[in-house]
């Protein structure tokens, strides 16, 4: 279980996260939704220590992550597929996947995980020797997810996997999220696409300007008047 308590982050004078608490139980899909600038990405970055926290603690299966180096956090199985995909454009698909497995020494396991991601994303197998920068946006997102899977995540955190993608690809990505979860990986999903996220999620939190203002099971939030008004574009 990932458990975040009273997490605060400042960017210069801006109080981006103002003491948030949430939990991601093992085996579940949990989503953080909210508008631009609500602090969703900051939360994920704080968990892997890519931004400094001002206060609060992050525990992963009882172990304190706060203050650890990113590389050591990743090695505990907490893996982030970052916003904007951040694949290495000048490296091939194959090399990107190899970097995903950078921390692993179990050659057999890596090889079988490679086969597994090629089953999930056959397109990547076709493009194995191609530079990641030449892939389409959807393919780059597939690569970003595949690369994260190569790190053997126990919890996969995905930051806006649907950003800028065609509806068909978005659907495919969310199907994959479900599939990854079914295979036993906990998922923490950050999304602006609130509807899609709440539909797959077991539990959701709504972030607004650095605070959690609402939480509940995905289906409950989907039905909530305030969520419908603010994030699903419905008039009340």
């Amino acid at each position, binding site marked *: 279980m990932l458990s975040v308590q009273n997490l605060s982050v400042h960017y210069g004078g801006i109080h981006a996260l103002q003491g948030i608490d949430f939990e991601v139980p093992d085996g579940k899909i949990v989503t953080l939704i909210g508008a631009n600038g609500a602090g969703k990405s900051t939360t994920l970055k704080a968990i892997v220590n890519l931004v400094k926290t001002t206060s609060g603690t992050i525990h992963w299966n009882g172990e304190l992550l706060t203050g650890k180096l990113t590389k*050591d956090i990743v090695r505990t199985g907490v893996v982030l597929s970052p916003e904007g995909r951040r694949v*290495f454009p*000048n*490296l091939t698909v194959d090399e990107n996947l190899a*970097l995903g497995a*950078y*921390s692993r020494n179990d050659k057999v396991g890596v090889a079988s995980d490679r086969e597994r991601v090629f089953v999930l994303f056959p397109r990547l197998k076709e493009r194995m020797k191609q530079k990641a920068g030449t892939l389409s946006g959807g393919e780059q997102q597939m690569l970003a997810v595949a690369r994260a899977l190569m790190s053997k995540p126990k919890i996969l955190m995905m930051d806006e996997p649907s950003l*800028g993608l065609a509806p068909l690809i978005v659907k495919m990505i969310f199907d994959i999220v479900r599939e990854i979860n079914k295979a036993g990986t906990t998922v923490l999903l950050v999304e602006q696409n609130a509807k899609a996220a709440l539909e797959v999620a077991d539990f959701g939190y709504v972030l607004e300007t650095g605070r959690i203002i609402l939480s509940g099971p995905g289906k409950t939030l989907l039905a909530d008047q305030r969520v419908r008004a603010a994030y699903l574009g419905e008039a009340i």
Partner: protein
Amino acid sequence: MDLPTFFQQLVNALSLGSLYALIAIGYTMVYGILRLINFAHGDVFMLGAYFAFYAITALLMPWWIGFIVALSLTALFGIALERVAYRPLRDSPRLSVMISAIGASFLIENLGIVIFGGRPKSFPSIPLFDTVVRFGPVSMLSVSLFIPVITIGSLIALTLIVNHTKTGLAMRAVSTDVDAARLMAVDVNKIVAFTFGVGSLLAGLGGIMWTMKYPQLNPLMGIMPGLKCFIAAVIGGIGNIGGAVLGGFLLGIIEILIVAFLPALTGYRDAFAFVLLIVVLLVKPTGLLGKSQTVKV
């Protein structure tokens, strides 16, 4: 110009060019990883030469052991330099790091004067490198033949490391996107240290070869070669290892051509490097092999 003179100058040009290339690689590697111009790189070059000098003359080591010791020390020095002068400023504005680099350079030069003494020293003669080799009318020091071989050998080894090892893969990842590399569990500090170590080792190698070719050492000997090799790296396209080698050879060859064909302009040979830099920056700001970065959103 007759044929023998041509070949004579060609040999001179190739060995000078290879030396420049060897040093330029260090600039370009560090820039590629950290986007930092290591202005102290020329001084690391100087230290390499002094380490070898003292290993052989004061510690009386056989030359090859002396070279190994000197190269190891130079590599360690490069790693320490990054640790002390650059790592604390990793998240600071780029200007601060540049000032720190210039400061480190002055510090090393002046400590060099204090510790090694300002008076030039002459490097001991090593027969293997100090023999005159003749091919018909063309004659040269054997070291001039070793230099291009060493440069090309280093280039091949480096290319293999960068393209075919896990460390090399991590280096390429860090150079494109540091945070994304961190998310891959890459130990960025280790990769940066490795880069400084290798770059400094090559500078040390360059320094040793340089003092055998022009057998004098002084604590300020790194300034001009350092500047020129920085120029060579920029001309070739900074961040690109092949570009640094190309730039180094180009600079060496053009410099020798000026001396050979336009003896009246010999005094301007150093100035010419800067003219070339300005021209390249005007015509192709990314350098000969550099690519402009495009961002796909």
